């Protein structure tokens, strides 16, 4: 289902449907649950579904580019932190020494994490860096 501005804020209109990574809903995440050891950092992670809902809302209020960023974000939810930081590093100027290194990262995003939008974003960077000579040594 597509969300609209009428669903916003989700935490108020449908708290039971807002869950963390392990399915724990917002009202279940209480201080007592934390003290009882029932809540981990993973329970406090946003889900791709929530990001998609926010993308819907953003689109509904006329913010298509913001929506796209939420959708790229949704694709990264399951990507491990280390790999995210590795790809970020690779995207910085002069880190990748050739277009191929970036294309390889894009392929991993696409094949391993089904991150299609992210993959295309990295491919676009690869193409631009090649055109602008950004694969040069910096340090």
């Amino acid at each position: 289902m597509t969300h609209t501005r009428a669903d916003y804020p989700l935490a108020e209109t449908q708290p039971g449907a807002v869950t963390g990574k392990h399915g724990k809903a917002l009202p279940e995440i209480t201080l007592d649950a934390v003290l009882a050891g029932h809540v981990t950092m993973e329970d406090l992670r946003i889900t791709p579904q929530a990001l998609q809902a926010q993308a819907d809302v953003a689109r509904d209020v006329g913010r298509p580019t913001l929506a796209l960023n939420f959708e790229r974000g949704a694709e990264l939810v399951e990507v491990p932190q280390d790999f995210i930081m590795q790809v970020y590093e690779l995207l910085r100027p002069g880190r990748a020494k050739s277009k191929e290194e970036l294309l390889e990262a894009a392929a991993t995003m696409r094949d391993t994490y089904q991150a299609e939008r992210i993959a295309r974003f990295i491919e676009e960077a690869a193409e631009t860096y090649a055109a602008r000579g950004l694969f040069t040594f910096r340090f």
Partner: protein
Amino acid sequence: MTPKLNRWKRFADWDERPLRLDRFAAEDPANGFSAFSSPADPKPGIGIKDGRVVSLDGVLEHDYDMIDRFIARHHIDPEVAPEAMALDSATVARWLVDMNVPRETLVRLAHGMTPAKLAEVVSQLNALEIAFAYSKMRARKTPGNQAHVTNAKDDPLQLAADAATAVAFGFDEIETTMRVSRNAWSNAVACAVGGAVGRWGTLFQCSSEEAEELRIAMAGFTSYAETVSVYGTEKSFTDGDDTPWSKGFLAAAYASRGVKMRCTSGAGSELLMGFHEAKSLLYLEARCLCLQRGMGVQGTQNGGIDGAPLTATIPGGVRELMAENLIAVWLDLECASGNDARSTESEIRVGAKILPYLIAGSDLICSGMGSILKYDNSFNPSLINGEELEDYLVLQRDFEADGGLTPLPESRAIELRERAVEAISAVFEELGLTTPTEDMKSSVVYASGSDDTRSLMPRDVSFISEAIKERGITVIDVVKALAKRGFREEAENLLDVVKLRLSGDYLQTSAMIRNGRIVSAVNDPNDYLGPGSGYRVSEERRLQLNDIRDVLDQKEVLRSEALHEKDEARHIRYRNLGPAANGSAKDDVVIGISPAFGLKLYRTTAGHRLSEVLGAMLDAIRARGLKARVVRFRHTADTSFLGLSAARLAGSGIGIGIQAKGTAVIHQRDRQPHNNLELFSNAPITRLEHYRALGANAAAYALGEMPEPIVVPQRGEAMGSRHHARVALIYAIETGLTEAGAAPEEVDITLTGAKS
């Protein structure tokens, strides 16, 4: 012969003013010193072919640099562009200030505008028009504000106390950074805990190295990031060690972790970094902002930021900062509108800089007001700092403008600081990080800045910070520690902030938390369409803004007078002898006193006892061998009429009129009421010696002499602002006792001699 001087001394006076510490730069477009336009700026233009942007501001697709490429692909909406780019810029400029043209119409058009077009449009507006357009175009209706919370020692106890104080003042966001970069984790925990004292909902960021900042956010200590910088030229961007794609990727990464994010850009950064391409500041910033919308970030910190001081040296620079903020909100971005780095040493320039933002409102008026003292600000001093925060509170009251802050009573501040220091100490103890001593804690609670503390030093903090990082301590551990040590409310508050990231509601444009609820451009959109619409200060909010400390009212004046009543009773007795007679003797001088003189009011505004003032005048008159009578008038409280009435009763034709507040006049029988012999209007600086001299001069006039008029020296004090509130309240007490046609009363004065 007097030697000729080589300068007008006024210039020497000006040399001493703080303004002259500011260094101004000449306009020089070729070297990047140009605010609004430069010969190197491109003319607006766009080419669209098959839904693709094939030329942008005169650059063909083949020649795009990486910024052009990103803007062409991610910002420009090819559906809107032909219509938007064809519009006359002057017409669009008029629409920006036309309250009948809705915000949404203009936002839609911006989706199709190039950087050069956006810059060309806003360049047509003067400063007032820019401020007005900003007020109309900003995304969220309710204004907010952000504080810096840092200190020179990276002391976590002080960070916690200062975070709690900032929260209580009403800041919607707090931002910290470190003196020593490895102390980031300690700073983050300290501000997270301090920011959870008192209420929940203040968003918090810890500005540090990109990768580290994201890790700290992942551990749950911070709730937003802001220092994701972008630049307007390719070479500045790469020297900043990023590209639009690396920053765009980071934006998606923050979203994937449920953490709010905005970018940072601002005039002057390219100029500081040496790659300005001879373009104007505004054009380069328009590129930055189009990039940011293209990246899909919800907002921006812009308006100069680190480049603001440089921008302010250039002609029109401050107007340019306003113009770039306008482009940001026109592009529908949340705007943390600078007013951050202190751009001047002149307090007048500071006040002038902040005012348009205060009255226009902004998502975050300052993207870092220093809630701490200048020397404690690890970002560098802000435009407004802990020293001047109270001035800002008064500006809110003056203009009935909501600058996002609320006055905080001192006793409440101390309570919150104690609580915050105890809370962070408990967390550190519980996690085995350190055990702060009682002396450390109390030195911090009462400290204005880190010079006053005897607390943890940067090296101590490094051990704490590295332990937090190494041991993988998360916000869950901190929440547990707080609750275990009895800080249950703070534990709840902290947990509530982390829970925000589950729904992602606060990732939407211009989101903040007010009274425990999300307020953003989605559910609180700016709906300005003229007077009566948009953000209005409610009556409840107005009363909050008004509630600054030490406000005077009539009750307060009467209370302080009552304190003096008993004291005066020991020094003077007034005895009414009935109707005053016309004097005929040449040596008769009359002192006319006002209705409340010594009956309801007992001291002059300078604080002198009325008994002493009267005594000084009587002594001086008698010293010349004349006789002095005291007459109370009740038909008037006005100094001139008191003086003239006294003169007409006096056998010498010379009278003195004096009000209880100390304003006095020497008058002569045949003069017009307001054409007196000598006036003593500055009661707050009139001393006993002046009243004595006044008596002596009155006597001299009675003896037919021409004395030197008394000068009560003043040094340009703002007498009105210091005293007029009290004066008006006091004078109302005098006028309240007047009675039309009341006859003058002869008063016998007995000075009982007790000296002060």
